[in-house]
């Protein structure tokens, strides 16, 4: 079904509720509705038309239209259609009906919108702070256009602490994180534990929010941002790099040259290869099976070298600019890449054969961290977590981008909905990635790497891009703007949705299963937090207070 047909269907159903619609292509649909009917429209789309919830975006559009803007994005995966339901809100007291009672997956999206843009989701049942630090004063919203990018409100109080929920009766609180051997990045779970059983948990994350979106919207330009975007994550950086570039290209109606599209596909699949191998290793480490951890890192290493040969870096490829790519894959590199893939395939096959027969690993992973198809739908879980529950979604096939429409591959699904199924999905996807890269190398035609862009990019256009990261769909939303930079750029990384499923996945499980359950979504807190760690090298011994550290970082940043 094309966007036009879907729109006709909407018109019949909603009629006068639709204020305006944009149909930039066959696969994109933006419907502007009256704010009071957002609940009705989204419920229909989510429940009756069975769309998948993708993201909620709030934007301060006052300097341009005089209003606030909210967009609930949905995906019709079978129809290959991404759809935004948008509503303009009055500038003085922006509020909109919460859709979380019908679309539970929107919970974080609405809380983030409330924190950062100050749009109140009326009727949201759990309006605790999500993104902003505890000491941040009420009423100050960083993503509003009248807040400067480097502004810290005068009332900021670093002493204020987060109010955690009360533990249920008879439960002991086990703090998990911010620092824990299996957490590579800070996140805090308060587990409510009865004996060895987890009865519930509360999550407090976003501890090192970097404000990347604000930075992009206020000081960087279109071609700086891809380099910033890939620093969102240390493992799937290229995904964000490509997704951002694609959403801008879509908004500006640019089509990169075919060779660039093939190179993007190859790099994305290389990234998936190294990420899946890394995940299998870490998962084994979590359950105490260090031998496979070491072996998968050994098998993974040549991929990293290959990436370095192509881009100059093991990670953080700095691949895309608007309208193309920066690195070529020369005939020599092609030969080498093929050899690396052959070796990887021949080494990975026996590993998987051994693991899939291993009763010992199955004992720790079967029936653990279950997220069934119902939970997948309600919380909007994606990627291997969804596919392991038999939900057949994959953006590479459903919303093709780069050169994915020109290659053949299978979408791997399993039925177990547990950690074991997720392990199988990832293990088998490695072979599909190898297949995709080989086809790309065969089909890649000669030609330019970049599009020549002579004109300014158009202003006020919207672009969406969903890229299938190793962890699931990474969704970028862009509104183009003045000064050679976007007005609004919103990143929804896969972990953002998958993390919301964790409380349900670990409930009534053993505390020993908590780490592997959390590990099974391949959590990437930096994607969620958009954080960065700062390595401080100081010759003398000194204990830094939070105040001093802030001062130091600000001095370094030249403020």
């Amino acid at each position: 079904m094309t966007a036009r047909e879907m729109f006709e269907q909407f018109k019949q159903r909603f009629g006068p509720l639709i204020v305006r619609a944009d149909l930039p292509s066959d696969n994109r649909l933006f419907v502007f509705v009256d704010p009071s009917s957002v609940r009705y429209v989204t419920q229909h789309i989510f429940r009756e038309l069975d769309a998948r919830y993708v993201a909620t975006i709030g934007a301060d559009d006052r300097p341009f239209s005089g209003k606030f803007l909210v967009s609930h994005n949905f995906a019709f995966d079978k129809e290959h259609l991404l759809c935004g339901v948008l509503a303009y809100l009055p500038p003085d007291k922006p509020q909109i009906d919460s859709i979380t009672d019908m679309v539970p997956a929107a919970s974080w999206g609405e809380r983030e919108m409330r924190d950062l843009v100050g749009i109140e989701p009326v009727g949201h049942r759990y309006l605790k702070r999500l993104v902003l630090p505890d000491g941040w004063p009420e009423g100050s919203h960083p993503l509003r256009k009248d807040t400067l990018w480097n502004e810290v409100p005068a009332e900021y109080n670093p002493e204020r602490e987060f109010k955690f929920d009360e533990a249920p009766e008879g439960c002991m609180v086990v703090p998990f994180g911010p620092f824990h051997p299996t957490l590579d990045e800070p996140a805090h779970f308060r587990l409510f534990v009865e004996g060895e059983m987890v009865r519930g948990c509360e999550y407090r994350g976003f501890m090192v929010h970097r404000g990347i979106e604000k930075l992009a919207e206020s000081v960087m330009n279109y071609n700086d941002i891809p380099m910033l975007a890939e620093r969102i994550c240390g493992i799937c950086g290229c995904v964000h790099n490509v997704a951002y570039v694609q959403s801008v290209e879509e908004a500006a109606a640019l089509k990169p040259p075919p060779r660039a599209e093939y190179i993007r596909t190859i790099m994305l699949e290389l990234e998936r290869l190294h990420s899946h191998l890394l995940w299998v290793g870490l998962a084994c480490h979590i359950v105490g099976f260090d031998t496979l951890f070491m072996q998968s890192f050994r098998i993974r290493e040549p991929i990293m070298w290959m990436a370095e040969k192509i881009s100059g870096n093991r990670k953080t490829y700095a691949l895309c600019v608007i309208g193309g790519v920066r690195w070529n894959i020369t005939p020599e590199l092609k030969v080498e890449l093929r050899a690396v893939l052959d070796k990887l395939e021949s080494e990975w096959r026996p590993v998987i054969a051994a693991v899939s027969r291993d009763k010992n690993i199955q004992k720790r992973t079967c029936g653990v961290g279950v997220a069934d198809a119902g939970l997948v739908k309600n919380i909007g879980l994606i990627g291997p977590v969804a596919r392991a529950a038999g939900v057949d979604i994959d953006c590479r096939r459903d919303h093709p981008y780069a050169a994915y429409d020109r290659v053949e591959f299978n979408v791997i699904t399993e039925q177990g909905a547990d950690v074991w199924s997720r392990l199988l999905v990832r293990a088998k996807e490695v072979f599909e990635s190898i297949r995709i890269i080989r086809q790309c190398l065969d089909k890649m035609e000669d030609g330019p790497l970049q599009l020549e862009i002579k004109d300014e990019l158009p202003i006020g256009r919207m672009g969406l891009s969903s890229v299938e990261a190793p962890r699931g769909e990474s969704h970028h939303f862009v509104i183009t703007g003045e000064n050679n930079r976007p007005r609004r750029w919103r990143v929804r990384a896969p972990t953002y949705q998958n993390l919301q499923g964790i409380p349900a996945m670990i409930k009534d499980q053993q505390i020993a299963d908590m780490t592997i359950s959390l590990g099974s979504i391949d959590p990437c807190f930096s994607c969620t937090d958009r954080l960065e760690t700062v390595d401080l090298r100081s010759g003398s011994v000194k204990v830094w207070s939070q105040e001093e550290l802030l001062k130091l970082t600000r001095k370094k940043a030249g403020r």
Partner: protein
Amino acid sequence: MKAVIWMIVGGLANVGLVLLVAPLAQGVLRKVTARIQSRQGPPLLQPYFDLLKLLGKEDIESGESPGMQRFAAYLSLAAILAVACLVPMGFSAPMNGAGDVILLIYLLTLCGICTLLAGLAAGSTYSLVGISREMMSMIVLEPLFAIALVVGALHAQSFRLNEVLSGSVYAVAGTPYSGLIMLVVMVLSFQAFVQRVPFDISEAETELMEGPLVEYSGPKLALFKYAHMAKLIIYSALFVTLFVPWGSGLFLPLAWLLFWAKVFVLVLLVTVVAATHARYRIDQAIRFFAGLVGVSFVALILASYGH
């Protein structure tokens, strides 16, 4: 008088030997593990340097009750070294006259108690979860070794160390059913006694951040690590004397070498099992041990009827 002096000298020799060999066994274990994992691995003598490094560090008092923390660290090494005095290591047991198998069982239990004390002293949530796991596994594990020793004692008609710790489990006329059953039981549970994967549940780094040891650092941690290494050697020695006595009748240097060769084979076995398994969950482990306890009771009954 002369006998007493020999007893003390022998005991000290055993203690010295264990202290000397334990880090080497750990080094072998680490090297072999690394090889299985396609790694280079640390030098064989690395565990000695690790211990020296830890011993040279600042002694920090932390946790809820630092006194008990210190006591637990001393006691853990002391208890396991006391066991060393009672175990024949290629020679007959030096303290043969001073203690019997019952004392041995008590001292082995004391080692587990130290872990509990350490966890209680730390008082952190993780250490408490760790000791609750340790306690659960102790309750089902300790009877296993005790039954193995009692089976030996029943066959030997004596609780004396030298008589029990010389392959006594097979000392019956005809097929030693009870001894063979206990051999299988001990092989299956051996990883748990020496606290290695898949049964290092109470310390599980990736779950509990070393559990009871979470607050330990510096010299006190060194003592615990040393005790941990010594445990591997001593349990291996006990296993060898109880279940693999063959060749102990040879003339001295050869018997002695054979004994240590057997101990190192056992260490290698432990290494390979640890490197090829994932950690079990506590409930899975307890179910497994409980099954073994049931089987070993059968062995006990058989033994009491002289089979």
